[in-house]
């Protein structure tokens, strides 16, 4: 198993390095001079040149990349051009909104999807299965931001149960903060849950056709126990794979959902930074999200080994 994990780890590291090169290269070819941006359009060419030197913008490309990448490793992302504060501070303020949002959504979608998938697989072809999978088919087709608008209309405007948007901050207490993340999390989670439920169902049905399931039934285990204990565990690999992929979707989804609910998260930060051409913020946030996706997929690879003992024995 050590070889398997090591190989995964090396691949993840290579992907991360390549990704950082791509992000750096994209930011390099962008028009717009950060020094000019910081000083404003009234600054003289000399002043701009001086600041460029000061910021290290005139250094050779490779040196600048190494400097930037080295900074990333020590969590020094540089200073925001527009806010003139360290990027890490800006990111830190926003992560505490986006990360809980993505995690609540991920938890919600798993908690909804797995039971629905098990329910459907256990009643394959019967009415309950048809209804559940019909609902899932519909859920896959719903754009999460539209669903968010409908939730706002129903729960915030009509029933007045939750705020329509904004975020009080964690300082206001845990419940008010969580409450303002609830609708966005539901909006993010339901379409993802629909996908996950479909995957869980088909993975389970595949497993239920295996011989050892028949054996388990033959030795007298009740159907429910076979389904939850034997089948679900073996169906976890595809489910985990999709969960890992969904984390990337959820992160990207938060970008749009945060805009619907006026949440001060990473997504809003990226949008503001893009419009203000605050490239260093854009590149840092993108790098952070990419690193998160790679880390989660690595975690998924590791969890394969945990759920599937066969992988542990190999090599």
């Amino acid at each position: 198993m050590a070889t398997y994990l090591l190989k995964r780890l090396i691949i993840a590291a290579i992907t991360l390095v390549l990704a950082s090169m791509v992000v750096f290269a994209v930011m390099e070819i962008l028009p717009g001079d950060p020094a000019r941006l910081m000083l404003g359009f009234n600054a003289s060419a000399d002043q701009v040149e001086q600041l460029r030197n000061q910021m290290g913008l005139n250094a050779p490309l490779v040196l600048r990349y190494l400097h930037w990448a080295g900074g990333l490793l020590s969590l020094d992302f540089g200073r925001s051009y527009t806010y003139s504060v360290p990027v890490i501070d800006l990111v830190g303020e926003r992560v505490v909104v986006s990360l809980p949002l993505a995690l609540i959504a991920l938890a919600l979608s798993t908690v909804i999807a797995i039971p629905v998938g098990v329910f459907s697989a256990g009643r394959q072809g019967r009415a309950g299965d048809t209804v559940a999978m019909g609902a899932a088919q519909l859920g896959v087709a719903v754009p999460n931001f539209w669903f968010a608008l409908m939730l706002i209309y129903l729960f915030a405007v009509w029933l007045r149960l939750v705020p329509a948007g904004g975020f009080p901050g964690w300082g206001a207490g845990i419940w008010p903060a969580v409450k303002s993340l609830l609708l966005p999390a539901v909006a993010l989670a339901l379409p993802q849950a629909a996908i996950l439920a479909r995957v869980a169902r088909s993975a389970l049905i595949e497993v239920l056709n295996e011989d050892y399931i028949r054996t388990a039934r033959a030795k007298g285990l009740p159907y429910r126990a076979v389904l939850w204990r034997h089948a679900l565990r073996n169906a976890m690999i595809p489910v985990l794979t999709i969960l890992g992929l969904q984390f990337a979707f959820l992160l990207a989804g938060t970008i749009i959902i945060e805009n619907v609910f006026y949440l001060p998260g990473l997504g809003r930060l990226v949008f503001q930074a893009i419009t203000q051409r605050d490239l260093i913020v854009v590149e840092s946030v993108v790098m952070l999200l990419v690193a998160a996706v790679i880390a989660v997929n690595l975690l998924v690879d590791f969890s394969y080994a945990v759920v599937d003992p066969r992988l542990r024995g190999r090599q």
Partner: protein
Amino acid sequence: MTVRVDLPEETLAGVLAKAFGNRSFLIGFAITLLVAAIALLSFVWTPYDVTKLVIADKTQAPSWTHWFGTDHFGRDILSMIMVGARNSIAVALVAVGIGMGIGVPLGAFAAARGGLADEALMRINDLVFAFPALLSAIMITAIFGPGAVNAIIAIGIFNIPVFARVARAGALAIWPREFILAARAAGKGMTQISVEHILPNIATLLLVQGTIQFALGILAEAGLSYVGLGAQPPMPSWGRMLFDAQTRMVTAPWMAIFPGMAIIVTVLGLNLLGDGIADILDPKSRRRR
């Protein structure tokens, strides 16, 4: 090991009969056809002119004169949805074309060559998958400017690894078969075998993936337009209509409800169509019955 006997080649009549017996396919096909017809119809006729602003009629609730109501400029929502269908279909279709056109040859090549070329391609695939697609699409359109063309490119780029992966996996399953061996014995080269024998055999897989990516493309385009990076006004687009509706949820909820329904119905139709095609043509599901 079980002995598998391949079923005889399906006749066209047999496939058609199966298609008419498949509920997913029928519903999906009907919806997709309807949406395409509405988009085409919008070129010659819409109930109202979507370029004309009638301020006197602004934000009217649905009625017999305006079935889906009017927006904040007094434009007819139904007419805008009809014209918006063009934009959604065009963006998603071209994006699928980009993904297939580049991804399939790459995947087929990787499967045929194997070794280092294959490994390199899969690593690049991993790399692209590490970028959340929507985030990258937002970056691309933000960098090169908003608009339908850049939205197509942004969505299309992320279709490439998807098709490369599907084509590679499909091709890898075909290469060890006897008829490929026969083709090689007959002196056919890697490229010729890929085009003449591999491609027809993975066409179904690609078609199914194509409908899925088409549906995802429509959702992605709506998302980009919603944040203002897709089609630009005055060109109506479903995502943009939702953006305009957002601040008017309290006074004019129909501005949000109907364009959203249009997206859902279209995506639902395409997904059902894809499921149906997979059911009809997939030998695995054939055996299951």
